[in-house]
Every structure is written in structure tokens, then in C-alpha cells.
């Protein structure tokens, strides 16, 4: 074996350890736990809903809303299909693989940039500690796809391309990085725009420093709009140029700008989370000091051009940090914290580079081991359901599925406090089966319960029998994503998933994911204009119960419309089918 390959063994060990730390051996049990915790509310709203709609032939942000970008659900649907199908198990599998690839790419980046295996391993451990095992994530990050690598997975590839350009100087890498940024805008506009800003800064700095001509910068810059336009055109066809798409894409951004869903930056202070608040202020300070210091020294020609990567990372970090500035919850700064991790590695390398080669290697490995130990002793790292943590344990073990900070069970934590309707549930029973972690004796029992509860084939058959293939099915249910995918039908409603999920057996009303008067009117107009022949609705929303709907959300007007225009004709397990009776 040649010496070059032998030199790579520490890297191979680090990547193998990373894969072992991230790999989840029992995906089924963990998916079952997520189902019991939030009934896939976060999975459905972020990925599975729009991914299924796309796979079924709906046009995203024209037929069905996609709150997290146009391309993301398409890409995720593609990967889930490769993994075996669009469902929660395969979404979790895809996310795990994405994390393994993502952190491996950042490791390669840090390894080449910082030229130190130990330091790169330390960066990796710090990345896992900061992002994946953050103390405020409950019970583990992959429950919330919008806070994971799903949001910003292309940045690792982008920075590797920029690194290649800095080292080799060939324009093709700059063009590819621009194309990557353009595609990322299509994938998820907010994080994509951050990459565009980082690209523009890098090019501008290179031009100012004389490393790049303005002409070639402009030429390679065409890759950004070209990649965006091509992706959009392929995905949406003629819809890509219409005003409807533009309006729909900007809808949620406009709410944000006006203050809907934002969180004040001092909220964590008022909640007594002082460490979280301190970090929230500290991270942008690190970015800004890095940016100014590195730019100043580059301007004075006192450091070589490879250091520009720290400034580009800082610009990207500052751009990404707008997410935390708008939604300053303690659970958000880690979501956009990866550039901070890399910059911490950069400063550590500057400190270590003051010593000679051998002590530097030892110190770097000591740092890596220290960070790995810190990671290993973090409760959230101990709770991550990987091979080591699950050795001889069930996912139901209190160290893996920890109770909520207020001591209440994790299972059904989103819905258990809902107001009840004075009636029986959709099955005509009073038993809601809101089981807790303590009600299951093994992972197999948990998985068996999950499979039974999440099998909605009876309702799917009802939908498939009354709605011809290729047509849209109007389903008003907490599990509409599952029912429609089992029935293999397109969603009818633009605002889909229709509800913020709650267990099907509950005799309570779920809250529709309709936030504004405009969205409510759009939903009512859809039913009035398209006049679907059948509407499928959970039996608990029967006409005699409609008066119990909360008048403050959109459910009451929807139920009033449905029950005044449709009459029940058939019953599945949870759903009843209503046929249009009024013109």
C-alpha cells in the first residue's frame, strides 16, 4: 500500500466514528417515538406534506403550499423514493445519511483548510456539540427537519468549491460555486440567498485584492441566475413566470417582516435562559470581529489569501443569523451555527500555529479529545439513539426518551392539553389511548402500536374508491398526508397539511394551519369554485359537533361550509365521506 493512502488512516477513523455516532440502528423505533411525541406534525408541515404533493403531481406553491422552499420537498421526495418511499421512516433515514455526508464534507473542508487532522476532528466534535446535540433541542434534533441539515445542506459543497478556487485559482470552481448558490435559492430561498451573499462577498473581495478580474467575476456570476432559472423552469414549467408563484412565494416572508411568528431577542433573558441568550449575542460578535480583522489584514497584505475563507464564512454566518434575529428562540441559534464552528476552528488554528509542528499536533488532538468528551457527556448526545447509546437499551429508556423539562411525558405532549369536545371520538369511543412512555414495555410493542395506529388503509380505500386516480382529494384530517399517500391521490387544499396534527383518537378539534383571513377565504373559495364531489372529514367534526369549534381559528367557517353543502354518504375508519348536495 502506498504511503499516501496510509497517511489517510486517521481521517478514515474520524469519519467512521462520525458515521457510528450518527447512524440510527433502529429507525422504526425512533420513528414510532416521533409519532407518539408530535404525530409527525413537524415532519408533515416541513417535508412530507409538500413532498407527497409534488410526488402526486401537484405544482408546489401553485396547487399546494410549501413553507420551506420550492426545491427542498422535490429533492427530499427524490431521495425518499430512492430510500424506499415517501413516509416518515424513509425521511428519517434520508436525514441521517444527509448528516453523515454533510459533516464528512465539512470535515474534509476543515482538514484541507486548517491542514491539521486533530483540529479538523475537533471542529467536527464541536459541530456536533453545537448543532446536533444542543441542550435546547428536545428530544433530538431530527424530530424537527426545519432545524436540520435539510435546511442548508448545500453550504458544505459550496464552501468546498470556494476552497478549491482559493487553492487552485481555476474559474470553473467559482462558476460551480455560483451555480450551487443559484440552485440553493431554488432549493430554499432564505438559505440560498445567504450563499449568494457569501459568493458575492468572496468575488468582490477577490476583485479588490487583485486576485480576480471584474470581467471573469461577472462571467462566472451568470451561473447564479442560470442555475436558479433552469431549476425553476424544469420544476415548474410555465408556472415559473406567473405572478401567482411570486405572490405565493413571498406570502410567508411578508408575514415575518410584519412580525408574525417573530420572537424578541430578549425573550430568552426573560425566561432565565442566560447561557442561551449570551450565546445568541456572542456568535454575531465572533462573526463581525473575524470579518473585520481578516479583511483588514488582507487589505494590508499581512496574511495570505487562504484566510479569506474565514471572512466568507463570517459573511455567510451573518447572513444566516437573520433567522435567529427574527426568531430569537433558544432553539434557533444552533440551527445557523455551523459557520461559527468553522470560525472557532480557524481561530484555534491561529493559536496553535504559534507552536512548532509536533506540539501543535498533540495540542490539536488534545482539543479534539476534550471536545469529544464534552460531546459524550452532553445529555442530548447521550440521548441520541445511535449504536452506542442503544447498546442493551430501548429507545423508551428515560436516558434516551427523557421526560419534558416540566416532568410531563414526551408522548402526546403537543395535544394532551387540548380542550375536549363533549362527544365521542371519530371511532365512536371515549378511550383516546393517549399512552405515555411508561405504557410500553419494549421497542417492539411501541413499533407494533405505531404501525397499527398509523395504518390508515381503511380510510385510504374510502378515498380511493370515491376519487378517480389523478384527481384531487379533499381530505380534512390531521393525518391527511398519510391518508392521501396511502390512497395515492393528490391533495385538494392549497393549505396542506390541513391541520396542526393531533392524535386521531382524540375527541378534540385540531387547529387548521390557516393563519390569516386571506388564507381562510382562499380555502373557502377553493371549495366553492372547484366544487369537489366528495369531501372526507374526520367523524368527530360531524354536524352536531360543529358548534364546538373555536370561532377564533378557521375551523368553524370551514365546517359551516362543508355541512351546509355536503351530506354524509359513507364511513371509513376515522373519516366520513360527504357528497356535495348543494349547488
Amino acid at each position, binding site marked *: 500500500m502506498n504511503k499516501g493512502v496510509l497517511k489517510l488512516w486517521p481521517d478514515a477513523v474520524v469519519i467512521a466514528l462520525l458515521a457510528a455516532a450518527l447512524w440510527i440502528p433502529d429507525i422504526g423505533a425512533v420513528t414510532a417515538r416521533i409519532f407518539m411525541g408530535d404525530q409527525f406534525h413537524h415532519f408533515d408541515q416541513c417535508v412530507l406534506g409538500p413532498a407527497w404533493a409534488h410526488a402526486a403531481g401537484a405544482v408546489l406553491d401553485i396547487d399546494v403550499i410549501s413553507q420551506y422552499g420550492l426545491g427542498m420537498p422535490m429533492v427530499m421526495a427524490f431521495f425518499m423514493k430512492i430510500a424506499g418511499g415517501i413516509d416518515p421512516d424513509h425521511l428519517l433515514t434520508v436525514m441521517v445519511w444527509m448528516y453523515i455526508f454533510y459533516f464528512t464534507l465539512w470535515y474534509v473542508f476543515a482538514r484541507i483548510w486548517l491542514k491539521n487532522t486533530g483540529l479538523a476532528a475537533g471542529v467536527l466534535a464541536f459541530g456536533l456539540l453545537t448543532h446536533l446535540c444542543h441542550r435546547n433541542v428536545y428530544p433530538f434534533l431530527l424530530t424537527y427537519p426545519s432545524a436540520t441539515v435539510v435546511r442548508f445542506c448545500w453550504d458544505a459543497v459550496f464552501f468546498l468549491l470556494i476552497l478549491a478556487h482559493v487553492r487552485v485559482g481555476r474559474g470553473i470552481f467559482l462558476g460551480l460555486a455560483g451555480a450551487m448558490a443559484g440552485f440553493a435559492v431554488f432549493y430554499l430561498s432564505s438559505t440560498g440567498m445567504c450563499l449568494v451573499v457569501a459568493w458575492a462577498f468572496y468575488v468582490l473581495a477577490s476583485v479588490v485584492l487583485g486576485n480576480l478580474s471584474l470581467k471573469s467575476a461577472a462571467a462566472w456570476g451568470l451561473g447564479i441566475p442560470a442555475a436558479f432559472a433552469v431549476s425553476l423552469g424544469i420544476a415548474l414549467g410555465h408556472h415559473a413566470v406567473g405572478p401567482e408563484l411570486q405572490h405565493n412565494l413571498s406570502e410567508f416572508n411578508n408575514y415575518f417582516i410584519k412580525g408574525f411568528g417573530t420572537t424578541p431577542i430578549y425573550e430568552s433573558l*426573560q425566561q432565565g435562559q442566560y447561557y442561551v441568550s449570551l450565546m445568541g449575542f456572542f456568535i454575531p460578535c465572533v462573526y463581525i*470581529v473575524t470579518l473585520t480583522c481578516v479583511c*483588514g489584514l488582507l487589505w494590508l497584505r499581512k496574511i495570505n489569501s487562504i484566510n479569506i475563507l474565514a471572512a466568507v464564512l463570517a459573511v455567510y454566518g451573518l447572513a444566516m443569523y437573520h433567522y435567529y434575529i427574527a426568531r430569537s428562540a433558544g432553539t434557533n441559534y444552533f440551527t445557523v451555527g455551523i459557520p461559527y464552528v468553522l470560525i472557532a476552528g480557524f481561530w484555534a488554528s491561529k493559536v496553535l500555529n504559534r507552536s512548532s509542528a509536533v506540539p501543535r499536533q498533540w495540542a490539536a488532538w488534545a482539543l479534539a479529545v476534550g471536545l469529544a468528551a464534552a460531546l459524550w457527556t452532553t445529555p442530548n448526545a447521550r440521548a441520541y439513539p445511535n449504536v452506542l447509546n442503544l447498546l442493551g437499551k430501548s429507545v423508551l429508556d428515560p436516558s434516551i426518551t427523557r421526560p419534558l423539562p416540566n416532568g410531563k411525558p414526551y408522548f402526546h405532549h403537543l395535544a394532551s392539553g387540548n380542550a375536549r369536545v363533549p362527544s365521542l371520538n371519530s371511532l365512536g369511543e371515549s378511550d383516546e389511548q393517549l399512552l405515555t412512555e411508561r405504557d410500553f414495555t419494549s421497542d417492539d410493542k411501541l413499533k407494533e402500536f405505531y404501525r397499527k395506529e398509523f395504518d390508515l388503509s381503511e380510510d385510504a380505500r374510502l378515498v380511493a374508491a370515491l376519487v378517480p386516480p389523478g384527481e384531487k382529494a379533499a381530505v380534512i384530517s390531521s393525518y391527511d398526508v398519510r391518508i392521501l399517500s396511502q390512497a395515492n391521490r393528490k391533495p385538494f387544499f392549497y393549505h396542506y397539511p390541513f391541520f396542526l396534527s393531533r392524535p386521531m383518537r382524540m375527541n378534540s378539534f385540531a387547529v387548521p394551519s390557516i393563519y390569516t383571513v386571506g388564507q381562510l377565504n382562499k380555502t373557502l373559495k377553493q371549495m366553492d369554485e372547484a366544487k369537489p364531489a366528495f369531501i372526507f372529514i374526520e367523524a368527530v367534526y360531524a354536524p352536531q359537533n360543529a358548534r364546538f369549534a373555536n370561532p377564533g381559528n378557521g375551523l368553524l367557517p370551514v365546517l359551516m361550509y362543508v355541512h351546509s353543502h355536503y351530506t354524509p354518504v359513507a364511513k371509513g375508519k376515522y373519516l366520513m365521506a360527504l357528497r356535495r348536495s348543494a349547488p
Partner: protein
Amino acid sequence: MREAAARNAFLVSLITLCESIQVVIVAAVVLSFYPIILGDFLNSILPFFRDMVLPEREMPLFALFIGTNGLIYAAWLWVLRGRMETQEIFEDLKRLFLVQAAFVFVEAAAGFFIFTAGNPTMARVVLYAALGLCAAEHAWRAVRR
């Protein structure tokens, strides 16, 4: 020489950070006297979700923070042109940083009590006094120069 330039550049970055934080604090204090007008927006949100409307000015303040940093740093580079690699400015920069950091610490402490202790008068007085002293210190430095 390279080492001296690096140390000076780092100190100037820290001073710039302190100064831009104070610019943001001043802007936030001034803006706090002008409530955000929502207009019809609140009525467009369904009543159930209206408590999720928390209008804020944190985005423009963050942009101000970044922009001010760039401008102040560029100004510092211009003021110190030709001297960034010299040892003699290091002590001056260090002293200036310590003074600025002390101001920021006092203002941050006052801000902490404003947000966590129900906006007490004493905290506001300390904040305004620190900002006033800092402005006076800047003016004094300018006159002396």
C-alpha cells in the same frame, strides 16, 4: 512586523465591535420612543393566532450593526494608515479597547436589568449616563487630537 499588524488589526476589530454595539444601543433607545404601527395587519390575522404577532425592529438594527461595523473599521484603517504595523499604537489601542469594553459592559448590565427586572428607572438612568459618558469621551478624544 506581521505580528504587530495582526495584534493591532485584532484590537481595532474589538474596538469597532464595541463602538458599533453602542451605535445599535443608541438607535434602539431612540426607536423605543416610537411604537411600531401595525395598521390593518393585525386584523388580517385570525384571532387565534394574533398573539403570535410580535412586531420588532431587530432586523434593521442587525443590519445597522453590520453596516456600522464596516464603516467604523474602514474609518479606523484610514485614521491609522501607515501605522498599523507599528508597535507604539498597540498600547493606545489596548487602553481604548478597555475603556470601550467597560462602557459596553455597563450598558449591557443596564440592558439586562431593563429586560429582566421590569424596566427599572435606575437601570435606564445608568444606561443613559453610560451612553452620555461614552459620547463625551469620544468628543474629548476628537478635541485632543
